[in-house]
């Protein structure tokens, strides 16, 4: 029984079968990549996991609990954090404040009316944020306004915001999309480090094979809304079905 179980998920948009009978089990502690050609249903699947879309049929359970129909903040509170294709951060706030918000959300839940307590008094939170910034090598940028940073740093900050919440599952939506090679490699290093040090379960949706093969220890290939192969990376490379899916049936 995996930490995240996807059973018989179907989703139609009008006449288009976006997802057909998706069954997927993510084991705790693994880095599970979901790949597939454009239009294979990767984004739709992700959106079903984070509460943005509701599948027509099927179940999605996290630690044995159904998460269908939950709002994004409720899903996060269960321990699922999400990294976006383009980094979503609080761009007008400082790096420190960005991470601090995530920290408060973890400690105090989705809403707390505490208008008269002072941020300055929150020693624990400060220590935690400091430590997190050290961990991701951003301590020197603590007072920088998030919008002013490079794309790589924004990604790093977004990661820090997720990690500070000690998530049980990290969802990454094409984390290196649109990045320069150097930034991509940095991100891979960062993710590797996270995996080694923290052992967080990750689901990565990715285009870039380089990223996938450097990180994942399990890969599911989606084609036309259905998983066609699920295996360890070394066996995926030579798989005929996968090549077929990517080349669009050029063998016929």
């Amino acid at each position, binding site marked *: 029984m995996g930490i995240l179980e996807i059973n018989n998920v179907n989703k139609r948009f009008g006449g288009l079968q976006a997802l057909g009978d998706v069954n997927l089990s993510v084991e705790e502690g693994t880095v599970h990549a979901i790949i597939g050609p454009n239009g294979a249903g990767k984004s739709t699947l992700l959106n079903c996991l984070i509460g943005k879309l509701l599948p027509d049929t099927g179940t999605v359970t996290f630690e044995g609990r159904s998460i269908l129909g939950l709002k994004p*903040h409720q899903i996060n509170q269960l321990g699922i954090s999400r990294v976006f294709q383009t980094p979503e951060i609080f*761009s*007008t706030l400082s790096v420190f404040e960005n991470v601090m918000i995530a920290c408060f959300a973890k400690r105090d839940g989705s809403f707390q009316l505490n208008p*008269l307590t002072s941020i300055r008094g929150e020693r624990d939170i400060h220590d935690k944020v400091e430590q997190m910034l050290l961990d991701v090598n951003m301590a020197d940028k603590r007072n920088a306004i998030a919008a002013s940073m490079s794309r790589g740093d924004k990604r790093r900050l977004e990661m820090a915001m997720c990690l500070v919440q000690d998530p049980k599952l990290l969802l990454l939506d094409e984390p290196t999309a649109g990045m320069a090679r150097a930034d991509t490699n940095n991100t891979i290093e960062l993710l590797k480090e996270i995996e080694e040090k923290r052992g967080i379960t990750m689901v990565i949706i990715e285009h870039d094979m380089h990223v996938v093969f450097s990180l994942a220890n399990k890969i599911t290939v989606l084609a036309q809304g259905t998983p066609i192969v699920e295996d360890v990376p070394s066996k995926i490379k030579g798989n005929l079905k996968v090549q077929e899916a990517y080349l669009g049936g050029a063998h016929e």
Partner: protein
Amino acid sequence: MFGLDKADTRTFLFVIAITLLAPFILNPFPTDSALAQFNGGYPDLMQRFMIFGIFAVGFNILFGLTGYLSFGHAAFLGVGSYAAVWMFKLLSFNIIPAIALSILVTGLFSLAIGYICLRRSGIYFSILTLAFAQMSFAMAYSVLSNPSFNLTNGETGLQVYASDPQYLKGSGPDITHLFGLEMNATKTLEVGAWAFQFNTGFYVCAFFMIVAFYIAMRIFRSPFGLMLRAIKTNQTRLNYTGLNSRPYTLAAFVISGMYAGLAGGLLAAMDPLAGAERMQWTASGEVVLMTILGGAGTLIGPLLGAGFIKYFENIFSKINDNVLHTWFSLMPESIENFLVTIIHPFVGKGWHLTLGLMFMLIVIFLPGGLVDGGTRIWNKITGRNRTSPDVVASPKPAE
């Protein structure tokens, strides 16, 4: 001090000092001099500074922090006034129960309106609040004023009549008072050619303003305030970080509504009368202008904006053609007449035209408001690079 850091404590003490000394500061010109018309140190105006300061500071908690632009806050001002006058009618002229009820009623009222309006954001929200305010205006003006159920007394406005019960009045005063301290009591201190006025009502308003400002400061520096600023920046991220933005915005809406209620209650406490015109969209627009003029999202900006607008409203409305002619009387007559003709549409009854123009100019050229503009000028002069004092940098690491 007060649970604030050094810079904030300084700001707070500064505001207290300015407020308490307002009767001196606002009266720089001798009473008989030609410039006396520029004095702002008389009770009625000073009370307005404080009351509208509260209104704007509260509005800023919603607009400045969360970025939700409400065009209906005047409705809360009006509701606060009506509630207060009803307390005068039913109990006595003591202002404490009146103000308490004002805050309570507006709190509930803004909870109801906020619950509906906050289902949408952006311009939808602005339009909805505007519609609600206009609806409240229509209700106060006519719907809730009919022989069988007269809550607002329609066009005449709600006021206290001799026939009202006033159950707790006993032998208490016939004008609004704080446990016997009458609101319109004024002591005048004459120093040479100057006359400084110290008015009970003003100091009551000042007290409430200082408390209100203090609470606003605490909100700005609280985790709650941080979440509100996060809402303004990126709601998607906020939701995926595990925070539910709806209750935060609703709480901010209700808090700012209660500030408006307090302001409305104080207006009635200074002059026990409540009329529907207090709820019109022009009044809502005015508080928006005060906030952006001073600087939305800054602590002190709304106070500045409120003072600025109320001062100039007062001065501008007093200026008529005669005054203008005396100003320019030294110039040749043709130039004098020309200048008077040019300025005429903007003063006296033309104050609203000036207000509208100011609105546009501020939004176009100084979107950060006076505080931001001041900081920029200060940076130019000193060559330093300071951000606005209220754009909160992240706190220093805990030692």
